[in-house]
């Protein structure tokens, strides 16, 4: 064992195999358990009242569990996995894994219109992290094993081993040239093998073979791309807006908020049962051409609303599966119209539903390569590739134009998590804020009276001081504002009031005037220039209100040796 420890490559390979097998089995258990429970909770053809009651009660129970015991298990799991990977050195706790398994099983089994793939990714990444840390691996090795767990999870959850690897690289790592490619492939293949050992060789969707009937049909697929792009944008924007609204509700209601999603999906499910749960069985019907235009349009719209409500209200579950459902409905609708208008030159609506799945995925998740390969793997049909590429790229372009920030990044930002960009990650290890930052010598409480604050900072050489409240950093109070306080008659007010006044005059101030430890010093200088502050707060990426320290202009200059030489020249003079 000690010899094995010395050989990092061998150890990583063995762990990749073990992670692949374990994650595959855990994800299969998760899927089977969810499916069996759902069949009992709201059986097909069961009473309508059950379809209202079950999701409402389910969301109430999971809402409490998420609030009380597993706050990290809320939502999809993919933004959380990325945050863990890039900000927390790949650390995901076993509690989070167990919570995700339990809460998502309950949530999906009670009919939430959410997906199982995102949670599976977090479960897989979490297991990889737990195993790697218990094996005593370095933080670098732990981080390297997290995407390996993601690949294994997605390979088992969606039965697409190649797309799983690509998704891990394209979405989770944000880098198709990542060095974890080999181990990700290994774990994905292991997981897929385990899946087939347990479940047999049965594709996720049984689809009739489709082909391009006529080159002119590409125009129809382009229309599908436009519809998919616009539909994706509507879905993402609605979800983000609703989530923002829920976040503004009092904190005491967090445990109760998921009920709003449960009740919404329950009421919809009373009239349209197919809107509940993951909905893959109905997707398969549509893929096989069993399409009634009115039904697919209605279900597509209902699913967009139901998923947005379920997700934004804080239920546990992902948007990966719902994206495919929405895409299949949009494709079915476009295909149905196209086939009615031009029956001799178009394939059946099922072909469009198939392409629509990839199109919506490309538009919502913004991983065009993964979406193409994923649909190819799901259908095992090569002939659909070209229309899929055309449609995907159009949807991707439209979605990028109308919704600048990709959904997982936008969700993380709403949670106060600032994920590093690919550029920032590439610069990691160079001159970073972490190298020049220091502890804040003075931290003002938000309720400190202005006159008392003046007293505290009178000997300080800084020109701004961090202000904190119960949630953490509230803002940076400039010396100029503090000095003006008696003149403006604000001396009796507290620091929070001064900051609020300051942010009214300078609305960008709070947003832009901070840096993270992994930011480059040059970016810190840029932000000092734009904010007019010589002192910037350094905050955590995992929580932008967590103050880690401050960075001063003088410290940056010292780091580059500029300040010292200036002093020397002054001395010489």
């Amino acid at each position, binding site marked *: 064992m*000690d010899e094995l420890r010395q050989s990092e490559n061998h150890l990583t390979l*063995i762990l990749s195999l073990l992670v692949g097998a*374990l994650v595959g089995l*855990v994800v299969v258990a998760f899927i*089977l*358990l969810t*499916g069996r429970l759902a*069949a009992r909770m709201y059986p097909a053809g069961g009473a309508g009242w059950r379809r209202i009651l079950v999701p409402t009660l389910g969301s109430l129970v999971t809402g409490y569990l998420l609030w009380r015991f597993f706050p990290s298990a809320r939502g999809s799991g993919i933004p959380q996995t990325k945050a863990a990977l890039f900000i927390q050195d790949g650390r995901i706790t076993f509690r989070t894994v167990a919570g995700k398994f339990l809460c998502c099983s309950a949530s999906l089994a009670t009919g939430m219109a959410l997906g199982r793939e995102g949670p599976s990714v977090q479960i897989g990444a979490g297991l990889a992290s737990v195993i790697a840390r218990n094996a*005593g691996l370095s933080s670098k090795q732990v981080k390297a094993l997290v995407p390996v767990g993601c690949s294994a999870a997605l390979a088992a959850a969606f039965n697409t081993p190649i797309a799983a690897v690509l998704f891990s690289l394209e979405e989770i790592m944000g880098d198709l040239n990542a060095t974890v490619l080999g181990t990700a492939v290994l774990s994905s293949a292991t997981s897929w093998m385990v899946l087939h050992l347990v479940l047999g060789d049965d594709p996720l969707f049984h689809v009739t073979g489709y082909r391009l009937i006529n080159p002119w049909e590409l125009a129809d697929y382009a229309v599908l791309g436009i519809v998919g792009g616009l539909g994706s944008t509507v879905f993402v924007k609605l979800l983000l807006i609703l989530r923002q609204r829920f976040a503004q509700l009092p904190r005491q209601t967090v445990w109760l908020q998921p009920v709003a999603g449960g009740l919404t999906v329950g009421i919809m499910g009373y009239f349209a049962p197919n809107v509940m749960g993951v909905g893959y*069985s109905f997707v398969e019907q549509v893929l096989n051409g069993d399409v009634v235009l009115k039904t697919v349009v209605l279900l597509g719209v209902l699913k967009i609303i139901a998923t947005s409500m379920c997700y934004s209200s804080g239920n546990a579950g992902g948007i990966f599966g719902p994206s495919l459902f929405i895409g299949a409905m949009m494709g079915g609708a476009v295909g149905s119209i196209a086939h009615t208008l031009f029956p001799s030159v178009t394939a059946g609506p099922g072909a469009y539903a198939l392409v629509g799945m990839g199109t919506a995925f490309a538009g919502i998740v913004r991983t065009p390569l993964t979406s193409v390969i994923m649909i190819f793997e799901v259908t095992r049909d090569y002939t659909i590739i070209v229309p899929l590429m055309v449609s995907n790229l159009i949807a991707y372009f439209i979605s990028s134009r109308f919704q600048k920030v990709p959904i997982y990044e936008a969700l993380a930002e709403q949670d106060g998590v600032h994920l590093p960009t690919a550029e920032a990650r590439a610069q990691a290890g160079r001159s970073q804020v972490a190298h020049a930052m220091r502890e804040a010598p003075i931290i003002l409480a938000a309720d400190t009276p202005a006159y008392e604050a003046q007293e505290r900072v009178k000997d300080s050489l800084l020109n701004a001081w961090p202000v904190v409240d119960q949630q953490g950093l509230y803002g940076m109070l400039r010396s100029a504002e503090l000095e003006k306080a008696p003149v403006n008659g604000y001396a009796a007010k507290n620091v929070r009031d001064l900051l609020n006044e300051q942010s009214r005059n300078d609305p960008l101030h709070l947003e832009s005037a901070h840096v993270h430890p992994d930011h480059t010093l040059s970016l810190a200088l840029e932000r000092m220039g734009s904010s007019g502050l010589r002192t910037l707060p350094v905050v955590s990426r995992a929580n932008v209100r967590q103050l880690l320290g401050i960075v001063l202009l003088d410290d940056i200059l010292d780091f580059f040796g500029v300040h010292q030489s200036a002093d020397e020249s002054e001395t010489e003079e």
Partner: protein
Amino acid sequence: MAKPASGLSLLRTFSLTIAAIAVFFLIDTVLVRTEKAESRAAAARAYENGMRLMGQGRYVDAAGEFEDALALARENLTYTLALAQALLAADRLPKAEATLSDLLQRDGTGGAPNLAMARVLAKEGKFIDAVSYYHRAIYGRWTSDAARNRVQARSELVDFLVANHSTEGLLAELLPLQQEALGDLATQKKLAFAFIAAGSPARGAELFRDIVRREPQDPDGYAGLGEAEFARGNYRAARANFEAVLRLRPSDAASRQRLNLSNQVLALDPAQRGLSREEQYQRSLKILELAVASATECLASPMSATTRDLIDSANNILRKRNQPTRQVEAMDKNMQLADMIWQIRRSECGATSQTAIDLVLSRASQ
């Protein structure tokens, strides 16, 4: 940050992970077994519902039930076949064909799926393919009651060929079917009619005689025998059988019509036995007269010179009506002239429904 671990902690991690793999493998196996058992039971329920709905003639609903059953038990050939049959009954032919294509990829030699495919293709009007699948069904594998199913398949093929007026190959199907279907009265009747359609009325008559002997009070037997004799040109025997039908079933309009036609032929045909030469000659004149009248009525004027000449010749003969010295030759000449005029009329004006003159002239030309 993880602390560097000893080989022992690594061993413990490996052991725990492998134990977890074993535990989850067991959990998954149990879950899969439970799921499969529940799915099988649910599929069987859906199938039973589907069969009940088929019995009630609710084919679309039945297809939905069979689809549900198949979604739960994809590999089940019985459910797939039932779905295809429901789709066929509901006239959803493209989907039925697709379902059967998939089924035949898995069970290419099965008699039942091939027969179902033949029925779909027959409904779609794909004649050659349908015949091919009927043959595959006849020579395919039947899990139970193979002999009866093969007779049924061949019998359907015969019906299909008759309906498509495909006498070619019909006789080849009828001969083995006659062997296989002995004793079954309904099949024998169908066979006998099919023999007539296949251009072998003698075999048909033989079978109908047997039927009449076994069931002397069965009007269908006499009707069939009448048709067989009519097809053979035995109008006297045909007349006797149609009269027998009307005695047993006086309201039988079709047999009455055939009886009238037989009487007209017998009254017109100069080749009937027991007629004097004078009578034969007079009948030939009558036929010539009917042919000219019919042609003049339908042919557009001006007629072609040939047609005009033929009709003028006929009118000359009919105008004179003198007793020729050589009546047999004159009769033959009249019949030939009538036949030529009739052929022109047929080509110019189209074929008429079976008429006495038509039957008499075609018999005479033979």
